[in-house]
């Protein structure tokens, strides 16, 4: 697992670069997930988002997710980059790329990665609506850290 497979960046993410990181001769499938800034959420309009991270820990937790994936889906390669700072509509907040010899694992592992990011990676999103601002967190869901976190 190369260290730079997992990054927190303050600049726009270049998707092609993330894809390159997982490209290899054994792979027949590469899936990517791009989380983009959506304008409307439950009838409320977003003007921009602001992401903050506990950077060093976030990189460690992204790497942990990669390791969890490689244990569960052997022979996958994973790269994840999350952007922080101010993002406007349609900008890319996160890119997850997974390569695998066959497609099923690439889809499953990719979806697993985004679910885990939302559970354990110390990154926070502040919505700037047209009528206010809020730090988002799943305060309503009591199981914010399932699957053994913290250990």
């Amino acid at each position, binding site marked *: 697992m190369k260290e730079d497979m997992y990054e927190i960046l303050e600049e726009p993410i270049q998707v092609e670069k993330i894809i390159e990181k997982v490209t290899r001769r054994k792979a027949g499938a590469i899936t990517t997930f791009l*989380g983009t800034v959506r304008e409307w959420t439950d009838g409320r309009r977003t003007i921009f988002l602001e*992401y*903050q*991270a*506990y950077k*060093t*820990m*976030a990189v*460690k937790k992204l790497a942990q997710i990669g390791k969890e994936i490689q244990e569960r889906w052997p022979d996958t390669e994973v790269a994840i980059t*999350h952007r922080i700072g101010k993002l406007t509509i349609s900008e890319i*907040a*996160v890119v997850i790329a997974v390569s695998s010899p066959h497609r099923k694992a690439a889809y499953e592992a990719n979806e697993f990665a*985004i679910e885990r*990011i*939302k*559970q*354990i*990676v*110390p*990154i*926070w*999103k*502040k919505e700037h609506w047209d009528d206010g601002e809020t*730090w*988002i*967190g*799943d*305060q309503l869901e009591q199981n*914010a*850290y399932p699957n053994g*976190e*913290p*250990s």
Partner: protein
Amino acid sequence: MITVLFFAQLQEAIGKDRLIMEESGITITELKGKLKMEYAIPQLDHVMTAVNEEYALPTDTVSSGDIVAFIPPVSGG
């Protein structure tokens, strides 16, 4: 000496991203108690804690040199 880091809504509530506290050998629960006496941060009851970049339990003890971070519910992705 313990470094305490704050993020997101906690950082805004306290008005700082970090504090240096002259403590050692206290549990996270005790540390939270001391902070609540000094700052109006009721949210502290509902956040996770990381010690040296790993999630920790309320009963874990922190020592001089440790970096403690309070982790509000995350919302990356």
